[in-house]
């Protein structure tokens, strides 16, 4: 098992290098000149050259790449041309906000999706199955931003139960910064009130975001459970008297989970890349909003930083899925 883990970890190094090269190349090859944009329309060539020197853009490309990679490793992710704030500092605030949203959404999707899929498979072609299929179909066909708007109208405006948007009220003191996750930070500081407020603000955007992975996980889990239930070994287990509960929750579940797991891993990356709409609708101060602003102004370093972070998380979540896959499938880890 240990060698399997090590092997998987060593394998991601070339992927990371490739990712950084790709992002760097795309950022440099993109049309438009950010320096020109940042310096303003009336800047003289000398001013532009100065600005370019300040950001290291006058050097040959390989040198620029080298500086950029060493910077990445040492924690210097460059700075925004406009705000002059260090990208690393910005990411420290925006990344946890987005991760908190994505993880909460995935947590909900897994918590509901796995039992729902299992139930639908066991009661195949009976009413629990039909219900789960109708709900999944609805959830997957509804655009997230539209759903977000509906939720806002319903729960925030009509019922007034939950806040319309934002992450934490300006009128309250947020918990002390430790991880950047407000849920965790408020628990660390023992502030249950802040924890409650955090959950209220999380509820609607997380729900809007969880529906599509929820639908996919339910369908995936249903399909793989149905497939596993038809395997020969399930017949053998029944023929030798094991109870249907033991067969389902022990012997079938572990096998059915491995296909679903792959989907979960992919979804984490997919949600991260797609938070923009939900963040915009709910005014959630996360990576999506940050990246949009940077892209519109062709602000290099933040764009690169966000891309690297999302790519990195994608790789890590796939690594975790691979490791879990190895745990669930003994055959995989010996190959």
């Amino acid at each position: 098992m240990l060698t399997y883990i090590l092997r998987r970890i060593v394998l991601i190094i070339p992927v990371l290098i490739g990712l950084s090269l790709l992002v760097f190349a795309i950022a440099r090859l993109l049309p438009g000149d950010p320096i020109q944009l940042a310096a303003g329309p009336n800047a003289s060539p000398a001013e532009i050259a100065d600005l370019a020197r300040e950001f290291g853009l006058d050097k040959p490309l390989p040198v620029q790449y080298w500086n950029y990679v060493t910077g990445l490793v040492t924690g210097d992710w460059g700075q925004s041309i406009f705000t002059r704030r260090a990208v690393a500092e910005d990411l420290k605030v925006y990344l946890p906000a987005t991760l908190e949203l994505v993880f909460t959404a995935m947590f909900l999707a897994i918590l509901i999706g796995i039992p729902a899929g299992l139930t639908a498979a066991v009661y195949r072609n009976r009413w629990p199955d039909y219900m789960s299929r109708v709900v999944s179909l609805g959830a997957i066909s509804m655009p997230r931003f539209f759903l977000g708007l509906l939720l806002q109208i319903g729960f925030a405006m009509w019922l007034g139960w939950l806040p319309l948007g934002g992450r934490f009220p300006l009128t309250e003191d947020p918990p002390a910064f430790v991880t950047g996750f407000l849920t965790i930070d408020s628990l660390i500081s023992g502030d249950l009130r802040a924890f409650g407020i955090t959950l209220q603000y999380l509820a609607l955007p997380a729900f809007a975001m969880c529906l599509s992975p929820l639908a996919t996980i339910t369908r995936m889990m249903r399909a793989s459970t149905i497939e596993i239930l038809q395997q020969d070994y399930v017949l053998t287990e029944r023929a030798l008297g094991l109870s249907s509960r033991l067969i389902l929750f022990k012997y079938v579940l572990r096998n059915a989970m491995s296909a679903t797991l792959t989907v979960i891993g992919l979804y984490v990356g997919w949600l991260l890349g797609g938070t923009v709409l939900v963040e915009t609708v709910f005014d959630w101060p996360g990576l999506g909003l940050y990246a949009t602003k940077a892209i519109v102004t062709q602000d290099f370093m933040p764009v690169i930083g966000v891309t690297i972070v999302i790519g990195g998380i994608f790789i890590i979540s796939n690594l975790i899925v691979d490791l879990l896959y190895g745990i669930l499938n003994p055959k995989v880890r010996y190959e």
Partner: protein
Amino acid sequence: MALLEIRDLHLGMRSFEGEAHVLNGIHLTVERGEIWGIVGETGCGKSLTGLSISRLVSTPPGRYITGSISLEGRNLLTASEPEMQSLRGRRIGMIFQDPTTNLNPAFRVGEQIVDVALHAGGLDPSILGVGAKASRSERKKAARNLAIDMLAKVGIPKAGERIDDYPHQFSGGMRQRVLIAMALIGRPDLLIADEPTTALDVSVQAQILRLLYDLVQEHQLGVLLITHNLGVVAQICTHVAVMYAGNIIESGSVREVFKNPNHPYTTGLLASVPTAKMKRGELQGLPGSVPNLLAPPPGCRFAPRCAAVQPRCTAAIPPSVAVAAHHEVACVLAEPHASAAA
């Protein structure tokens, strides 16, 4: 009281084309110590007969139409599902064809055997050899030790270590040994083995059959051995039942049936076995093919392929008659034997 007694079992199988009458009045009596070979062409209902006994045919698409199956007098077709579960793995052991797909790949083999042992031990504490009040961990430990003993008994070397291996770490033959250990760990009285060696290498087949034979002898089990191999039947079975399109058309002791086959189908089946003495071109197949069970021919289902067919064959399904002691045939041509009838 007979160990297993199947009386006039009719089973339907529904598909989108309609309901096929796949078992059409099966009669079979198995006593302890008897090894019954069940033979017949593919699709004749051998597996469904075996699955019906453990009531593992899913309904729907299956439907038990009439008949009874009793295990020591207890009717299995009317038993409740929990009652059936308490018989499976404990009174009735089953082994299936393909050892590569019949073990759960995600679990150590030990885990799977131990669960079967715990199930059987929950019904009869003497199997685990611990008192009825033993704690869960004591029972688990006893089950594990029993599993190791059982694996050693079926010929797995270093069973104490291999018990923690996963199925893919065993060869096909070894996996079938594991499955045999699983089927027998609950000390069943009846063993149903559905083509247990068909998926194995020829060299391994003989070893597995030998192992099964020895274990069955030792514990005096009643056995249903479903197989296509008449040579195997001749070597290890005491009795044979020949099936055709959902009926047992000839049955009895192996010696009687093989020496003196009465039913034209049995004769044809025996003639289709190649022997070393045969000359080139002498090997015979049966002409024709199995009837469509959705619309079976009237009367004897073999009539359309039978060389000795007569007008009365299509009138009704011929009843079984005893042509000798321990020898019954369902054919209009069969002559009841005076001493057997008496």
